[in-house]
Each structure stands twice: as structure tokens, then as C-alpha cells.
């Protein structure tokens, strides 16, 4: 009981601290207008806050900026998952042209440096005569996750809603999960990560993993903090071609932001499959084969900057090798 109180107390203090930071950050920008008006409470109420001078001040909640990336739930709840959900993703390979908008959006949202991609787009060519295709890859949030099995400290865990998340305050950085993941999904903070000033003091939570911490592992988290607010992950929203369908297996519904379809019907009609099914990891990400493609594969290659072109040169220009 006492522990519970302590935790609540702790949570309250964190909350106050975060709100205070949010206030300071907003004040520093010299504007109090809210960028996300949708989240303003309908009826304004007074909220007590701790000012930077150490005084308690009352502020109309309408003037508070919503602080993004502030975890909405406690760390314990973040280990449980969102009740009743079973997140699933479907990636339509026929629509991908390596526009890379998903990667930019993901990195912007998670404050990842340019080279650290939680979401990557590979160019796969299954056999010599097979046609190459673009292959976006997030974390597969496997139902039999090899990474979770090997974690010695329960820093990475599987939730009831299907997500595999990481507690970067518990992770000891042994990298066993990285060695165990067959899909090279996980990335490591090899040096002190650059975190924007106003996010540095956020209370860490497995649902946000902001701020990133040196010497710990991180990866795509399917943005559960956004899911709690009814928002789609940035990669889904950013894709100009509607490649990613994100949704809930329990509701049997997935959406790419424009069209909302039945998950089972989509998998049935388009012969959905899971990557490397034979490994038995049971991924939560399904792929639709690149049949009747919307773009020729070259479209994703021609206009790339040279450093990115180099990644795919072996497949796109084999004669030059």
C-alpha cells in the first residue's frame, strides 16, 4: 500500500515537473498558443503548477501546451498494454516506391539522428531471376519474440496488446536481444544520443523511450503513446502511397489513413504473408506481395542521393560491380 502511495506520489511529482517543463518551454518560445487545439479541454479549468521560481501558480488549462512524448501511463501500465487491443500492421509491397517519407517522419517523431533508422526500407531480390522490390521494415513485434526470450533483466517485454517494448531505464546494454533478433530491428546508442533540450528531463517510459539513453537498445515501438490518443504512427500517416495499414486484429480493422479495411479480407484477397515465417517467431507484421505494382522499382532508386544509392547499387546496377 505504501509502495503504491510512493509510486503515486512519484508519478505526481513527475507530472508536475513535466508540466512545469512544458510551461517553461512554451514561455521560452514566447507564445502560449496551442499547436494542437484538438486536445484542449472543452471546459477550461484552473490547474496548479509549480513555476520556475518555485511558486505555486494557477493557470487556465486552456493556455497549457500539450507536451508531446510525455507518457500518459505509468511504467507498470506501460508493461501491461492497451486493454482489448491486438495491434497488427500490413505492409503493401505493391505500393512502395522507396519514397522514404516514413523514415523521415519516424525519425522526426522519435528524435532519432539521421543515420539511426528504426524503420528502414530494404531492396530485396529473392533469387537471381526474381524482380527486386522495396521492402519497408519496422519491428515485427513477434508473438514469439526471440529478443524477449533472451533479455536477462526483463527490459524488453511482450505486452497483452501484442507490442514488444523496451524499458531503457532497465536495459543493461548487453545487446543479446540484438544478436537474437533475426531481422536486425534493434539499434544501440553507441554514444550519448542528442536529445532536444526540452525533452531531456522527461520521465522515461517504455511507451515513448524519450529521452534516448547511451548504452541502451532501442527500436520501433509502433507508437503506443499515439495509439492511446487515437493517432496512427507517423510512418503510416507520412506514406504518400498508403503502404502501411495499421490496426487492431481484435476489431479486424486496419487503416492506412485513407481507407479502412477488414484485416482478414485484405490478407485473404492479397495473399498476405509474414516474412521468414519458417523461423517461428510469429510476426505481427504482414506483407502483401508486390503484385500489380503501382511503380516500377527504379522509381525508388533514380532520384536518391548518392549515399543512399550506394546501399542498393549491388542490386540495381549489378553490371557496375
Amino acid at each position: 500500500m505504501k509502495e503504491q502511495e510512493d509510486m503515486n506520489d512519484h508519478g505526481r511529482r513527475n507530472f508536475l515537473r513535466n508540466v512545469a517543463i512544458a510551461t517553461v518551454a512554451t514561455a521560452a518560445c514566447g507564445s502560449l498558443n496551442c499547436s494542437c487545439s484538438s486536445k484542449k479541454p472543452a471546459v477550461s479549468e484552473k490547474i496548479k503548477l509549480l513555476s520556475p521560481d518555485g511558486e505555486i501558480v494557477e493557470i487556465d488549462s486552456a493556455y497549457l501546451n500539450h507536451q508531446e512524448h510525455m507518457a500518459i501511463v505509468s511504467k507498470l501500465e506501460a508493461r501491461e498494454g492497451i486493454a482489448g487491443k491486438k495491434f497488427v500492421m500490413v505492409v503493401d509491397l505493391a505500393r512502395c516506391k522507396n519514397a522514404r517519407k516514413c523514415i523521415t517522419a519516424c525519425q522526426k517523431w522519435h528524435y532519432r539522428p539521421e543515420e539511426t533508422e528504426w524503420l528502414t526500407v530494404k531492396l530485396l531480390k529473392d533469387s537471381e531471376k526474381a524482380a527486386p522490390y522495396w521492402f519497408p521494415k519496422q519491428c515485427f513485434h513477434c508473438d514469439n519474440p526471440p529478443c524477449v526470450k533472451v533479455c536477462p533483466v526483463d527490459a524488453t517485454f511482450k505486452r497483452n496488446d501484442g507490442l514488444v517494448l523496451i524499458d531503457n531505464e532497465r536495459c543493461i546494454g548487453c545487446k543479446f536481444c540484438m544478436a537474437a533478433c533475426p531481422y536486425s530491428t534493434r539499434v544501440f546508442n553507441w554514444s550519448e544520443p542528442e536529445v532536444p533540450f526540452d525533452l531531456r528531463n522527461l520521465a522515461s517510459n517504455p511507451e515513448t523511450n524519450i529521452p534516448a539513453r547511451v548504452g541502451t537498445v532501442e527500436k520501433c515501438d509502433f507508437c503506443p503513446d499515439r495509439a492511446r490518443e487515437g493517432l496512427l504512427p507517423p510512418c503510416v500517416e507520412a506514406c504518400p502511397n498508403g503502404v502501411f495499414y495499421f490496426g487492431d486484429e481484435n476489431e479486424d480493422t486496419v487503416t492506412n489513413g485513407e481507407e479502412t479495411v477488414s484485416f482478414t479480407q485484405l490478407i485473404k484477397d492479397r495473399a498476405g504473408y509474414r516474412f521468414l515465417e519458417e523461423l517461428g517467431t510469429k510476426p505481427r507484421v504482414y506483407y502483401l506481395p508486390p503484385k500489380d505494382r503501382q511503380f516500377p522499382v527504379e522509381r525508388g532508386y533514380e532520384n536518391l542521393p548518392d549515399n543512399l544509392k550506394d546501399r542498393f547499387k549491388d542490386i540495381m546496377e549489378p553490371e557496375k560491380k
Partner: protein
Amino acid sequence: MELNSYQQQAFDYQRPEIEKFGKLNWFFTIFFLCWIAAGGYALYLQIAKGHGVTGMRDNVVWGLFIVNFIFFIGLSYAGAIIAGVLHLLKVPWGKPIVRLAQMMTVISVVVGPVFILLCVGRFDRLHHLFIYPRIQSPMTWDVMAVVTFFAGSVLFLYLALIKDLAVYRDAKLNIPKWKQWLYKFLAIGYRGAASQKRHLIISQNLLAIIMIPLSIIVASILSWIFGMTLRPGWHSTIFGPYFVLGALYSGCGVLIVAMWVYRRMYKLDNYITKKHFVNLGYVMMMLAAGYGYFTFSEYFTGWFGSAKWESEVINKLFSPGEYGWWTLFANAAGILLPILIVAIPATRKVSLITIAAFIMVMALWVKRYLIIIPTLESPALPMQDTRMEYVKYSATWPEWTLTFAGVATFLLFFTLMAKFVTIVPITGLEDPHLQHNNHHEPVAVNEVTQPA
């Protein structure tokens, strides 16, 4: 403590080594300490700047450190098995080298785990291994295994030392007071009374019986850190036995080299004889054959089956542009060379066996590198990365410095321990010329082994 004339002679002969700390000892001690200090600086860099100072990256997440971990821990397990077998089977010629084997066990189980800690990104969170342990993880198994093994091996060495410590205590050695006190303290009042003898031999026998299976278990658990993942070149049922044999084999080689070094430095030719080298040489040859067989099975099944992911690793190992030459070295020098040197009577000499053992130990280190790195360089999905350091592992100077610091620590411990205890045990030592009659154990042992 009563010693027979042969034992007294052995003690008097080795006495100066534990009384004096010669110039050469100082030179080596300072030399090793310098390396360790350099390693300390590299470690400081790694902690201050993050693991980015190493060659490890997102694909090759483990590098030299884990290779060294497997290498040193392997020596440790080998030492325990060799010492345990020599003790239990009462091998008559084994007495003079048991201590070296036990020293190797304890020293490498101290040095080895340091290297796995170097792989860990957050030193400040190591206690999480104990406060949030997760029993499913092979890493947790390994933590338990190494801690258990450490306790066992220290005890195993200590029990074997007690009689000797009593001899040193009673010998009126010309040594500083603290050392005299330490001998007295560690000898825990052993006087050679019948009941003391009995208790000691029972505990030693029991511990030897425990240490042999324990070594096999912990070596297998070490292999399962790799074997339990789904990666080609690792995910193989042979991995447990493969690591046990590899550990035993390389440990045998290091023991031969250690025997040679001490025999030469401390002029122990009368005690560590050609017989020891030849006999351990035979053991080494048999282990080489076994290791070769396992290696062949592993590569041959992988190559013949030629599953896509598996053959990618095999191709890397055998193509001259990648690891081909290293594979050739690891197998030629690590398997064929010791077999040939020991099998041919003309080359079955102390010096050649030692050289073969030394080269084999190097080759086995390379072999561990070949087990770890090429697999990590072969993810299921193509890397398609333009950052070369992410695609191909190459160890950086902090990693090499720390590696040599580890070797220096290993050697430093050997140097210092040889100044504290005699390399050849005094008590229980028997005159090899009297060994034709089979009474090579005191009566007390028979009393113990008979059912009460």
C-alpha cells in the same frame, strides 16, 4: 607437518621462489601493470565516450571482448576438468601439474567474466542482473553458472592448498610478517591429524566430483548464449559439446605452455618431466582429433545442406577474400599441427610439443573469432548500409589494448601466485622412482573410500 625426504627435498628446492621476489619478477610485474594501466585508460574511454570507441556496431554487436570471454572462461573449465580427473583417478604422474591446472582455473575465471562485462553498455546497471533476473535468458543462466563455478574453483584450489600452506607456515621461511600471518591464517590450523586428513580428502573428492560435471554444464551454457539464437553458424545442437571440447582442448594447450614456462624459469626439470609433456601431448592429440571431428561435422552439414542463410556464413568462412585464410590457419594450426607433432615419434619432444600447443592456443582464439564475427556479419536481411564500420567488424585500439590488458592480468596473477605458493605441490608428492609399487596414496584414503 611431516614430509618425507623426497617432499622435503622438493620443498627446499622451491623454497627460494616463495621467499624472494627477484628482479625478473619485478620487471614482469611492472610490465604487466603497465599493460593493465593502458587497458584502464581504454576502459575509461569506453565508459566516457560510449561503446562507439570499439569496433562493435549494430550488426556485429559483440567483438573481441566476447571472443576473449569464451577463450578465458574455456581455459578455466578445462583447468577444472583436468585437475578434477587427475585428482579422482589418482594419476601418479599428475601430482606436480595439478596446481598449475587449478591456478589456471581460478585465474581465468577471474579474468574471463571481465570481458563479458566490457560488452555491457551500462556498467551502472549491472545490479539489474540480480534484482530483475529473468530465468528464461541464457545470459541469466550464464551469470548463475559463472558465479557458481567461480566459488567452486576457488574452493577447489584452496582445499588442495591447505596441506602445503601448513608446510609453509611451519617452515620458518624468511618472509615478511604479513605473509607468515597469511599462511597461518589460510592453513586454518591444519596439523595433519587423522581426522583433518579425512575431512580434507572427503571434501576434495566431493568437490572434484562436482567440478567435472559443473565445468561441462557451464561450458554448455556459455555455448547456449549463441546456440539459443536463430542465427546460422550458432543455432546448432553440436554447440554445447563443441564448446566443452574446445575449452578442454585449448586449456590443455595453455597448461602445456605454462608447464614449459615454469619448468624453464624455476628450473623444475626434475619435477615437470618429459613424461608430463608427452602424456598431456597425447591428451591434446586426442582432443584435437575430437575437435577436428566436431568442426568437420559442423561445417560439412552446413555446407551439404546449403540452406541459404547457413551457406552465407560457410561461404564467408571459406572464401579467401573473407575469412578463408583464417579458417585455414585455425584448422591447420589448431587441429592438424598438434596431431602431427605428437603422433610422429621424432617430433614428440618437449620443445616441439610446447610450440605446437602455443600455436594451437592462438589458433583456437582465432577459431572463436571465426565462430562469433562471421555469423554476426550475416544477418538474414541484407545490411544495405553505407557505413563500412557497420558492415564489417574491425577491432579498434581500445579493444586490442583491453585484450592485451586481460592477457597481462592473466600472466600477472600467475607471476604473483607463483610467489605465494610453490608451483609443484609439496605434500602428496611422490618419488617417481618409487612409483612401481602401487601404493601411491596414504592409508587414510582407503579408510574414506570404504563404505562405513
